[in-house]
């Protein structure tokens, strides 16, 4: 079974809608331990993404993801811009020219994206960042595929793992980003970036479930 570039497009569009809906929530999380702009930043970015994706909507997944990354780098600013921008640029490079994406390739693209985030931001696990949601998600998706799960199952498991990772940031003391200025006062709050990353993986899983996959749709 394979995913399609239409599903990738649906994922990005769906996530833009979720970010717009959850703007206040994400901003509120950032107000507690940062500077209260994460939702505003992400929404500004994904509104730009929608505009830039429209003319390339029928292109391959690599183009869609790279266009997303460039739009984020050029419009978000803050820590989120380069980090999410790098995530999508690397994921897009991994799917260069592909309109039909194998299960392994899709999970491989997520892994490449995560690797980019870690290279750029130099966060370690448990530093209380978006890496804490993305890392378990990628690991769980790989394990699931290895265990014979379908892509749909693997991505649902990945979203669950991201949710656990997000919640596990609550008791952590922030060591990276603006929240680290608080030291112990960052303990007890959920990381905004881990939250937006969880929502990203949930949106992916929902997009895969909502649209027919390649193998199902061939007649």
């Amino acid at each position, binding site marked *: 079974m394979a995913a399609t570039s239409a599903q990738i497009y649906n994922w990005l569009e769906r996530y833009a809608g979720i970010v717009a809906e959850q703007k206040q929530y994400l*901003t509120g999380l950032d*107000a507690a331990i*940062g*500077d*209260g*702009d994460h939702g*505003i*930043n992400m929404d*500004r970015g994904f509104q730009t993404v929608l505009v830039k994706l429209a003319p390339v909507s029928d292109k391959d997944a690599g183009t869609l993801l790279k266009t997303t990354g460039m739009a984020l*780098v*050029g*419009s*978000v*600013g*803050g*820590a*989120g*811009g*380069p*980090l999410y*921008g790098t995530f999508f640029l690397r994921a897009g490079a991994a799917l260069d020219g592909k309109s039909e994406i194998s299960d392994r390739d899709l999970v491989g693209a997520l892994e490449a994206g995560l690797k980019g985030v870690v290279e*750029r*931001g130099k966060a370690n696990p448990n530093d209380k960042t978006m890496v804490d949601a993305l890392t378990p998600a990628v690991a769980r998706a790989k394990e699931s595929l290895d265990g014979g799960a379908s892509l749909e199952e693997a991505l649902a498991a990945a979203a669950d793992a991201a949710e656990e990772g997000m919640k596990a940031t609550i008791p952590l003391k*922030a*060591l*990276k*980003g*603006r929240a*680290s*200025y*608080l*030291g112990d*006062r960052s303990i007890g709050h959920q990381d905004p970036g881990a939250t937006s990353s969880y929502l990203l993986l949930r949106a992916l899983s929902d997009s895969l479930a909502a649209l027919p996959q390649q193998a199902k749709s061939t007649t």
Partner: protein
Amino acid sequence: MAEAAVTTRLKKLINTPETEVKDAMAGMAAAHSDLIRVEYDPNVIIRKDAPKKGKVGLVSGGGSGHEPLHGGFVGVGMLDAACPGAVFTSPTPDQMARATAAVDGGAGVLHIVKNYTGDILNFEMAAELARGEGAKVNAVITNDDVAVQDSLYTAGRRGVGVTVLVEKIAGGAAEAGANLDAVTELAKKVNANGRSMGMALTSAIVPAAGKPTFEISDDEMELGIGIHGEPGRERTKLKSADEIAEILTMAVVNDIPFKAGDEVLAFVNGMGGTPLIELYVVYNAVHRYLTGRGIKVTRSLVGPYITSLEMAGCSVTILKLDAETTKFWDAPVHTPALRWRV
């Protein structure tokens, strides 16, 4: 839009939150056409006669809302370009890449970056882009805020008041013809010899957020506040200006530490919502504290130079001076917000 209701409650001199940065840039261009020009998309404020052939270009940038930092310091003897981001959000790499290209007179460009993860990452991406185009780019990171514990394992200290002093002193050296490595080393020296700490009486309101960044009651203050309203060391009961000045100055002096006999520049900065008369009350206590410890205050700066929108409060920056830094502090400067000897 959902924000419409919030926006109408906002008592600010803006048209819309979305247009605020560009409207202010246009105002700066109109008011200071002898010194600067502006470009939009990407947004950049550029010294009018840039690029200056053979002169090192100085580029800084950061979130808007800290005016006059950085755009107000573009001109003769200070910055060559500034990149304003959205309010309290670092600018994007295309802005810094454009600024770098616009001011590169062949002698290379120095990026002056305040130590915030967003600023660092965006400037890094911009430097990669600019180097890809063949530009010679160095970066210096300011991290002078003693309210934050310094550590190799965290994001480290925030860049605050010393940034203004780095821009002035490095700008003086660049104007005098120093090469890129010399300007870079001087900027690093200023950062290494300066320390700051701030405090807030009230919160700023980011227009796009529509409400105060933090709640604080009438009898409280936040010690060690960041310029984006990031919480600091502690929330305590309000004290007198003399006591507050002493707390801030003591924390700064003990950090390097500054010693009897040192010659220093004392900088009392307003956060945006505090009147100058109060800043002078604070300065008086800062000066007395330093002099009482045998520290010689040979230069000073008092006023709102690195602000946090309408936040009330102040910060204290102390910079240890030597002959070189004193000389370039005194050098002529002509920018919208700082001008002497021209």
